[in-house]
């Protein structure tokens, strides 16, 4: 300490101690930020990829790595979501819980270019990162890398239909809402079981032959087995885009209208209003059985798609809806009551008559403009 500046020894000592104290506090704080699970790293969770991840006992803030994960977290604990991968649009807002409508846009962590989002993600100070969907080597290495880089535990949860109840239970338990997770899981399980019972009585060849029309002209579709179209088979339909060979790739492909004519589906599902409007007066599609029998169905898209987009828990209402369209006798559905109930239980909103009516009109092929 410099005595020459006219400060007495005692005061200097005190000031120095205070500064040291402050610095120590800073360091401790920084350490806490670095190791959010430091003090109470209580639990070791095994995720769907078999990774063992240490997570804190209490989790208050969850970063969803992509749209499917954001829906999973939203259904279970909307108050713990730190943001949406994409900010809700104007027409989606009325169908979300008011407290979550204005959450910030936090981007996607999955896919390449994750470094650009890393700081945005850190700024939201999450206790946990969850990704929900495909589990493969790429996603595993991405999760390991982000976890090592940020020190925030990163869980990979399998997003396939059959795994939905397990995912709801696991994540519900992790987020401290085990009861809600259990309730939603048994609800989904009951639906899947009912469907299985009905489908057990219906031979393969009597099931509807379904084409999922995607893209502006309806000439994109998902091959059988892809996560984008698994709702077709789960609801008891047969996807006409079936390459047969199990070794072929599974994903979104382009087809020609000639291939659709040859496949001649008796049911078409889509979410694209442009395609839906055009298909009725298009001579090329006029001969297709689905158009002739007026079995082209338009899926609502708010706040999330009913049949896909993204492939997450939003498909549960779509699954029920499609099953009721495929098998109206065996799988009857009171669309009004069930939609209201689903939006209340899964999306935490009480739809007023107006917003509910808009959804019902949408399923009848009249989307809002």
């Amino acid at each position: 300490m410099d005595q020459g500046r006219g400060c007495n020894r005692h005061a200097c000592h005190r000031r120095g101690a205070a500064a040291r104290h402050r610095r120590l506090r800073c360091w401790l704080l920084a350490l806490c930020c670095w190791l959010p699970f430091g003090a109470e790293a209580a639990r070791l969770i095994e995720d769907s990829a078999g990774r063992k991840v240490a997570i804190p006992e209490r989790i208050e803030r969850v970063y969803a790595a992509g749209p499917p994960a954001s829906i999973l977290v939203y259904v279970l604990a909307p108050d713990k979501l730190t943001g949406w991968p994409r900010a809700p649009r104007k027409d989606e807002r009325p169908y979300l819980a008011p407290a979550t409508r204005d959450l910030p846009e936090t981007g996607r962590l999955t896919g390449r270019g994750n470094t650009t989002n890393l700081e945005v993600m850190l700024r939201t100070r999450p206790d946990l990162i969850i990704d929900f969907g495909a589990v493969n080597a790429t996603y595993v290495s991405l999760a390991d890398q982000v976890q090592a880089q940020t020190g925030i535990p990163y869980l990979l949860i399998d997003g396939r239909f059959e795994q939905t109840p397990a995912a709801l239970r696991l994540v519900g338990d992790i987020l401290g809402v085990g009861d809600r997770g259990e309730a939603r899981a048994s609800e989904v399980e009951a639906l899947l079981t009912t469907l299985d019972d009905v489908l057990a009585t219906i031979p393969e060849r009597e099931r509807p032959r379904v084409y999922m029309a995607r893209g502006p002209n309806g000439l994109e579709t998902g091959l059988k087995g892809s996560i984008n179209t698994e709702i077709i088979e789960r609801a008891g339909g047969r996807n006409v885009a079936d390459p047969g060979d199990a070794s072929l790739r599974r994903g979104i492909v382009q087809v020609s209208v000639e291939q659709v004519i040859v496949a001649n589906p008796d049911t078409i599902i889509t979410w694209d209003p442009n395609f839906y409007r055009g298909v009725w007066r298009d001579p090329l599609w006029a001969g297709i059985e689905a158009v002739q029998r007026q079995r082209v169905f338009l899926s609502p898209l708010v706040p999330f798609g009913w049949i896909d987009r993204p492939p997450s828990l939003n498909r549960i209402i779509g699954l029920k809806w499609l099953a009721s369209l495929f098998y109206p006798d065996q799988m009857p559905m009171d669309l009004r009551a069930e939609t209201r109930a689903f939006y209340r239980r899964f999306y935490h909103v009480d739809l007023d008559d107006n917003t509910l009516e808009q959804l019902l009109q949408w399923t009848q092929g009249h989307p809002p403009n």
Partner: protein
Amino acid sequence: MDPGSPAELSLQRTLVLLVMLVSLLAIAAALIGPYSISPTQLIQAFAQRLTGRIDPALAATDTVLFSVRLPRVAAALLAGAALAAAGAVYQGLFRNPLVSPDMLGVSSGAGLGAVLGIFLSLPVPAIQGLSFVGGLATVAIVYLLASAVRGHEPTLVLVLTGIVLGALAGACLSLLKILADPYDQLPAITFWLLGSLASVRAADVLATAPLVLVALVPLVLLRWRVNLMSLGDEEAAALGVDPRRLRLLFIAAATLMTASIVAIAGVIGWVGLVIPHIARLLVGPNFNRLLPTAMLIGAGFMLAVDTLARTLAETETPLGVLTACLGAPVFVWLLASGRRGW
């Protein structure tokens, strides 16, 4: 060249052979496809159309043939011919065999326009319109910017400006891809940028063909002047033509052709680059002879590739993938076998 000379006779023979080959390919392409149509049915369907009496048993065949397959065959012929013609013009104009029709950014601009249309969830005709306008506008901006720069070799400035604007359009396109909906718009964008004739309809062909024909008129009428342009500006001016005005005219014609094709078929690479080379091997660098030969080879090549694209798998194979797989080895072979002038 007088019509009786041996070279002219051999050109005529080449062209007749090519026309026959392309016609055979067209008939084969009309018969091949997932919906089976026999040669007899093909003839019956045509007879029905001529007599105007449609047999209900053949109604589906009629739809597939006249609304799906033949428009697609026509679109493939048109696309191949137009892209090859545009490539031949550009290679002569820029005196460079490595030039393709998208040199001045027409494909990047058209791509950006279409992707913007997909991003805004517009209906298909609007996407095509935006793409067409995007392609034309990009080349117009490139030309205006390049004209404003003086004191350098004009073709060099044009090429460099084209590269810069193409890169800029590519960057904007990447931005839109990042912002697009990954479940809905991103696949559509990807498919569009790889090129496909899967969704082509008769109306598309009818809208595009006049544009291509209009663009072809100055090329045919002034075909010998392309040869003059390939001598360089000074020689061309010494021979009594205005190189600036001619260049503008030829660029406008080639751009109109490429932009109208890209608008209906997406970005199809390699055809405009490789086909003029093959034509040059057959008939030499004289544009008089090069233009019809390149157009016929381009039409046949595109038709063959598109027929492969729709029959290789249960689903569509992107055209850009096939043309690259076929075009790249051919191009390397051409490079290895020596330069032959242009």
